[in-house]
């Protein structure tokens, strides 16, 4: 690890996090109130692109884009807190089914993204 690479990863992560906010906010609040679709879209799209980038991009770029940009863009903590809130509100279908659908969807899309560009 070089300091320059760590700096690049950090900056890319900041850009990714800001992008996550913009994509999440592009989903109308009326829809987000029913289910956190914004974060689901972010995590699904980011997982697909990470699969593709892992297959296509060489070493240092994979670190900057994969660990930095896409790592900062996608998030686990918000998805987990949203799921916990839904379950604690007794909205079990949204909380449990949404969590597992997101898991299966993200893993499948990461695999497909990799397979396309491998």
């Amino acid at each position, binding site marked *: 690890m070089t300091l320059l690479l760590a700096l690049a990863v950090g900056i890319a*992560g900041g850009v990714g*996090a800001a992008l996550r906010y913009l994509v999440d906010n592009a989903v109308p609040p009326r829809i987000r109130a029913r289910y956190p679709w914004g974060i689901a879209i972010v995590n699904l799209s980011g997982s697909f692109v990470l699969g593709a980038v892992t297959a296509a991009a060489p070493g240092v770029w994979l670190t900057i884009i994969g660990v930095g940009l896409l*790592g900062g*863009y996608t998030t686990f903590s918000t998805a987990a807190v949203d799921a916990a*809130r839904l379950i604690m509100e007794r909205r079990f279908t949204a909380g449990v089914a949404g969590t597992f659908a997101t*898991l299966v969807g993200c*893993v499948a899309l990461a695999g497909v993204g990799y397979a396309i560009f491998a």
Partner: protein
Amino acid sequence: MRLHPAILIGLGGAIGTTVRYLLSLAVPGVAGIFAINLSGALILGWLLTALKMRGPDEGRRSTVRLFVGTGVLGGYTTYSTFAFGTVGLLGDGEPALGIAYGVATVVLGTGCAALGILLGRRFPMGVDPE
């Protein structure tokens, strides 16, 4: 000075991502990402609940939520690396391990977030709930 939320989140995200990168160098592979995601879920559950207990989402509370919650903790945790790590285990002929890693992360992650929420209700940062 009021920063645009995207700038605030970007600054926080840069910090969180750097911390995750350094930790994942220290603990490579899925074990490091597993620990990062679970700890991030716990802290975010506590933070968002504690902020809500203190008052409405405005002013400094809103700034902390966006900078630390959406930015630092959002950038610290990751779904894409987790998802691709699961793909890696499934593709390496370790299907049982891949499924266990995926399911354990979301189930324990949700549990950690719920624990954080409960802790936030009990310990909302120096505010007397009475």
